C-alpha cells in the first residue's frame, strides 16, 4: 500500500475504517479540521471496538475490581495481585479469535506473544500460560485444520519462549464453525515494588523503540477484529501478524535486565494498533504530549508510509520512556540481546500527538482526546427470555448406563485432551506441580518452600446461551471450584468476553446480563476482576457464536504438600459427595450426547451455597484430610467419579441413595465436589460437614479395577480409559469410525 497523506477523505474511506458518520463528525470537531489520511488511521485505531470498548465500557464498569489483595485492577497491561512476601502475580487473558480463524498457526502464536508481552511489560517473568479454545463442529471441513494449526501455533510460540502451559479448555460446537475462539492467558511473577506501568513522567525525555523491526504485517488488525466476517475473509490474511518467539524471549530478558538498572520510567508494549496505541497511552496517562520522528523507526520493508508505520502490528516491539542518563547502559543491554534500540521521539508539554515523517508533519492531534473522547455507547438491548424448569422425569433414562457413560467419556467435548497438551511444554521452569488434566494447573512460587499458585480457565457457553445470567455466574463459580479443588484460595480473575455483534439488541442483551451474572458471582466469591478483554462481532454471515465469557482465575496454595489432586486417592479411601443429589438435566452433556438435544434452562447457581461448600472443602484440604478432590461439572457425578478413577488407575465401589438415577448420575447441578478421605478420617470429615451445615453423602470407597455405581454401572477403568483417550488422536489422524 503506498498512499499519499494528502489522499482526500471520502465517505467510503471513513466507512472502510470502521467509523460511522456520527463518529467522523466528532473526529473533525476534535481535530478542528479535516483529518489527514494518517490521522484518520490513528482515530480509527483508537476508536475501534477492540481498543475503545465503546459498546461494553458502560457495563464493564459494574464489575467488582477491588479487594485487599488487588494492587492494580483493569486499565493497566495486566492485573496485579498481592500473594504475600512482597510478591505479586500479574495476569490477563486476551482473545485472538479473528486472526486465528484466518491463519490458525500465526493467529494463535501471536495471541500467545501478545499476552506474554502484556505480562512482562509490567516487570513480571511469565510462569504459567493457559488457552481456552473453541472450535466448530468436528465434522465441519475446516475444523481439523484449525485445531491442528492453533495447537501447533500455541506450542510453537510458548515452547520456544519458555513458559509452561498448565491448563486450558478445548471445546467443539457448530456455532463456532465460522468464528473460532482463541483466548490466551498468561501469568507472571514480580516483586511488589518493581511493577512498571505505562504512565510517562517528565518533559523532553527520550521515547525509545525496542525490539523487532516494523513491517507491514497486521496493518489494520484491530479494525478487523472489530468487524463481522463475511465470505471475503480470506482476503484479510495480510492483516494477520507473524510471530517470532525467539525475539520475544530476547525482549523479555532485555526488558527485565533493563528494568533492574532503574532506567525505565514508563513502558508499553505495542499490541493492537502498535505504535499508535502505545504512544498515545503513555502520553495521555502521564498528561504529556508525544512527538515521534518516523524516519528513526527501525523498519524491515522499504517505502513504508506514515500510515502503515503508525498502524503496523508487527510483533515483539516495545515503547519506553527512559532516564536520559541511562541511555548508554540501556542500549548496551539491547545490543547484547540482538534487538533494535532507537530513539524515535520525545515527551512534550503541549498535550499533542505529533508525527513527523520525511520532514513533514503528518499528524498533529490532541493526545488526551484520542482516548478520553472515544465514543461510549449505551446500545439498546433485550432482556433474554427465561426457560421454565424441566424436572428429571421429562428426560428419558439411558437404555444402558455403562454404554452411556462410555459414550460421554469418549465424546469430543469430554474426551482426554492429551493430544493437545502433549504438544505444549508443561514442565519448563521446573515448577509445575499439577499438569493439564486435573481441575487446575499448579505452579510453585520459586524461592518459597511451600507456596504455589493454581490457575483455571472456565465457562460453559451452552449455559450462557440458555441463560446469560446463570451462565455468567456459573463461569465464575466453576473457576472458583476448580481452584478450591486443588486446595487454593481463589484470589482474583481475568475475564475474556467473547460475544457476537453488539449492534443487535439480543446479542447486547446477552453481554449485559452475562456481565451482571459475572459481577454478582465475583462479588459473592471474593474474586475481583483485575484485567480482561472484550471481543465482539464474533459472527460470520450473520450467525453469532455462543456467548462465551471466559474466566481465568488464580488461587493461592499456602502449602503445596497438602495440595489435592484428582487422581491421588488410595485403596480403601472413603468417597464423599459434598452437595446434594442432582436433578438438573437440561443443557447437560447427557442431554446432548445421549438424547441428542440441547435445550432448556441452565442450572442455577446458588452463590451462598457455592461459597459455604467451597470454604468447607478448602478447609478440609488444608487440614490434610483429603487424599483426592474433584469438582463436579460437565457430565455430572458419574463422569467426575470416572475421571478420578482414570487418573488414579483404581476403581471405586459406590452405593448411592437416589431417586432419579439418570439425573443423579449425569445431572449438572452446581456447587458440588467429590472428596476422597482416608478411612481413619472419614467420621471426622462427616462430623465436620454436619457441623458446618454443608450437605454431604458418603457414596462409596476407592478400590478394585472397576467403577461400580449401584446396579447401574460396572465398568473397568481400562475400558473407560481407552474410550476417553481414543477420540482426539483418532479424530486428528482422520481415522475416526462412523
Amino acid at each position, binding site marked *: 500500500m503506498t498512499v499519499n497523506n494528502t489522499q482526500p477523505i471520502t465517505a467510503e474511506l471513513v466507512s472502510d475504517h470502521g467509523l460511522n458518520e456520527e463518529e467522523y463528525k466528532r473526529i473533525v470537531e476534535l481535530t478542528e479540521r479535516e483529518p489527514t489520511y494518517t490521522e484518520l488511521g490513528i482515530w480509527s485505531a483508537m476508536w475501534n471496538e477492540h481498543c475503545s470498548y465503546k459498546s461494553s465500557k458502560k457495563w464493564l464498569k459494574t464489575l467488582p475490581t477491588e479487594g485487599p489483595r488487588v494492587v492494580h485492577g483493569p486499565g493497566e497491561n495486566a492485573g496485579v495481585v498481592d500473594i504475600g512476601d512482597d510478591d505479586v502475580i500479574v495476569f490477563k487473558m486476551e482473545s485472538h479469535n479473528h486472526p486465528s480463524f484466518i491463519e490458525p498457526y500465526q493467529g494463535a502464536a501471536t495471541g500467545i506473544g501478545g499476552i506474554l508481552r502484556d505480562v512482562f511489560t509490567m516487570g513480571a517473568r511469565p510462569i504459567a500460560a493457559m488457552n481456552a479454545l473453541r472450535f466448530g463442529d468436528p465434522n465441519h471441513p475446516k475444523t481439523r485444520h484449525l485445531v491442528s494449526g492453533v495447537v*501447533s501455533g500455541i*506450542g*510453537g510460540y510458548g*515452547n*520456544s*519462549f*519458555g513458559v509452561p502451559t498448565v491448563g486450558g479448555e478445548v471445546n467443539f460446537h457448530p456455532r463456532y464453525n465460522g468464528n473460532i475462539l482463541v483466548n490466551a492467558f498468561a501469568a507472571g511473577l514480580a516483586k511488589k515494588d518493581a511493577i512498571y506501568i505505562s504512565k510517562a513522567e517528565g518533559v523532553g525525555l527520550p521515547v525509545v523503540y525496542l525490539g523487532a523491526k516494523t513491517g507491514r504485517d497486521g496493518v489494520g488488525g484491530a479494525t478487523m477484529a472489530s468487524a463481522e466476517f463475511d465470505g471475503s475473509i480470506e482476503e484479510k490474511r495480510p492483516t494477520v501478524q507473524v510471530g*517470532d*518467539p*525467539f*525475539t520475544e*524471549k*530476547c525482549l523479555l*530478558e532485555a526488558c527485565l535486565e533493563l528494568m533492574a538498572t532503574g532506567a525505565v520510567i514508563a513502558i508499553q508494549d505495542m499490541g493492537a494498533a502498535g505504535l499508535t496505541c502505545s504512544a498515545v497511552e503513555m502520553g495521555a496517562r502521564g498528561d504529556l504530549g508525544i512527538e515521534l520522528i518516523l524516519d528513526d523507526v527501525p523498519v524491515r520493508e522499504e517505502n513504508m508510509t506514515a500510515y502503515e508505520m503508525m498502524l503496523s502490528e508487527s510483533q515483539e516491539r516495545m515503547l519506553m520512556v527512559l532516564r536520559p542518563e541511562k541511555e548508554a547502559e540501556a542500549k548496551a543491554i539491547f545490543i547484547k*540481546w*540482538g534487538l533494535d534500540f532507537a530513539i524515535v521521539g520525545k515527551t512534550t508539554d503541549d498535550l499533542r500527538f505529533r508525527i513527523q515523517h520525511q520532514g513533514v508533519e503528518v499528524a498533529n492531534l490532541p493526545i488526551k482526546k484520542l482516548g478520553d473522547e472515544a465514543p461510549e455507547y449505551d446500545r439498546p438491548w433485550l432482556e433474554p427470555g427465561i426457560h421454565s424448569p424441566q424436572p428429571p422425569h421429562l428426560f428419558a433414562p439411558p437404555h444402558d448406563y455403562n454404554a452411556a457413560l462410555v459414550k460421554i467419556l469418549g465424546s469430543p467435548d469430554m474426551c482426554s485432551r492429551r493430544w493437545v*497438551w*502433549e*504438544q*505444549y*511444554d*508443561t*514442565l*519448563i*521452569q*521446573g515448577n509445575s*506441580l499439577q499438569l493439564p488434566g486435573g481441575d487446575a494447573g499448579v505452579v*510453585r512460587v520459586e524461592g518459597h518452600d511451600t507456596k504455589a499458585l493454581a490457575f483455571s480457565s472456565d465457562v460453559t457457553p451452552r449455559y450462557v446461551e440458555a441463560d446469560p445470567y446463570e451462565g455468567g455466574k456459573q463461569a465464575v463459580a466453576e473457576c472458583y471450584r476448580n481452584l478450591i479443588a486443588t486446595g487454593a484460595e481463589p484470589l482474583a480473575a481475568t475475564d475474556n468476553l467473547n460475544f457476537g455483534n453488539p449492534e443487535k439488541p439480543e446479542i447486547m442483551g446477552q453481554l449485559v446480563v452475562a456481565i451482571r451474572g459475572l459481577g454478582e458471582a465475583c462479588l459473592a466469591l471474593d474474586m475481583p476482576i483485575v484485567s480482561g478483554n472484550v471481543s465482539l462481532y464474533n459472527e460470520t454471515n450473520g450467525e453469532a457464536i455462543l456467548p462465551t465469557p471466559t474466566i481465568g482465575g488464580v488461587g493461592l496454595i499456602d502449602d*503445596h504438600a497438602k495440595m489435592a489432586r484428582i487422581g491421588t486417592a488410595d485403596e480403601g479411601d472413603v468417597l464423599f459427595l459434598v452437595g446434594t443429589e442432582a436433578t438438573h438435566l437440561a443443557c447437560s452433556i447427557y442431554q446432548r450426547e445421549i438424547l441428542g438435544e440441547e435445550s432448556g434452562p441452565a442450572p442455577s447457581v446458588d452463590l451462598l451455597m457455592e461459597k459455604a461448600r467451597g470454604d468447607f472443602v478448602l478447609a478440609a484440604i488444608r487440614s490434610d484430610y483429603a487424599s483426592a478432590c474433584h469438582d463436579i461439572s460437565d457430565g455430572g457425578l458419574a463422569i467426575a467419579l470416572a475421571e478420578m478413577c482414570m487418573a488414579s488407575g483404581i476403581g471405586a465401589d459406590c452405593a448411592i441413595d437416589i431417586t432419579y438415577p439418570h439425573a443423579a448420575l449425569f445431572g449438572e447441578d452446581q456447587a458440588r465436589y467429590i472428596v476422597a478421605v482416608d478411612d481413619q478420617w472419614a467420621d471426622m470429615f462427616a462430623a465436620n460437614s454436619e457441623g458446618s451445615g454443608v450437605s454431604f453423602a458418603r457414596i462409596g470407597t476407592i478400590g478394585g479395577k472397576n467403577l461400580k455405581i449401584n446396579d447401574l454401572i460396572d465398568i473397568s477403568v481400562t475400558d473407560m480409559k481407552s474410550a476417553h483417550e481414543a477420540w482426539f488422536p483418532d479424530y486428528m489422524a482422520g481415522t475416526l469410525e462412523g
Partner: protein
Amino acid sequence: MKTTIIQFPGSNRDRDMIAAITKIGGHAPFMAWHTDTSLPDSDLLIIPGGFSHGDYLRAGAIAARAPVMDAVRKAAKKGIRILGVCNGFQTLTESGLLPGALMRNAGLTFVCKEVRLEITNADNPFTSKYAQGEIIRCPVAHHDGNYFADAKTLKRVEGNGQVAFRYAEGTNPNGSINDIAGIFNEAGNVLGMMPHPENLIEPAHGGTDGRRLFEGALNMLESEMA
C-alpha cells in the same frame, strides 16, 4: 567440581539447569555467554535446552558456530566432561562433537511427556549412579529429537558402547533409530541426550530419577547424595 552452563540468547531450560546443579551439587554454576571466547576453569560444561537462536534453521545449527563453541571443542579435547540436553544435544551433533543428527520428530509435532529410559551403558561417570539395564522415568520436551545416523556410524556407535540411554519398550516418542535417547562421544567425556533429567530431581517434580545423572556427572560420593 566446578560447573559452567553455556547460555545462548534462546536458551530456556538454563534456569532449570541452574536449579538442578545448585540443588544437587550444593553451589551455583558459572555462566558463560555464547559470544565468550574462553570459559571459566571448570570440570563440567553444560549446554542446556531451548531454542538457541530461534532454531528456524536446523536446531542448534547456528549455535554450533558460536564463538563459545571453539572453547567447548578445546575443552572436549582436554577430556573435560560436557553434557548437552535437548537443544544442547542438537548443538553437540551440529558442532561435530557427537556423531549423527537429530531430525524432526516422526510424528511431526512437539512432544512433551514422560518416557522411560533404559540405561544402556552404566560404565561412565555420567551414568555410574544407575545400574546397567535399569529402567528410569524421564520427561521429554522437543520438536526435533529423532536421532539418526548412517549405517556405518550407527554400527560404530553401537559397537563402541556409545549409546548411553535408549527409550524403553514402547516409549520412543520421536522415531529415533535403535530407540537411541542419548549418546557418548568415543572418549566418553561428552554426553548428549534429548530427555530432561533436570525436570525430575525432587519430590515436587513427582520423582527423582533424573537426579543420579547429575550426581554421577559431579563425581558425588554416596555420603554427599540425598
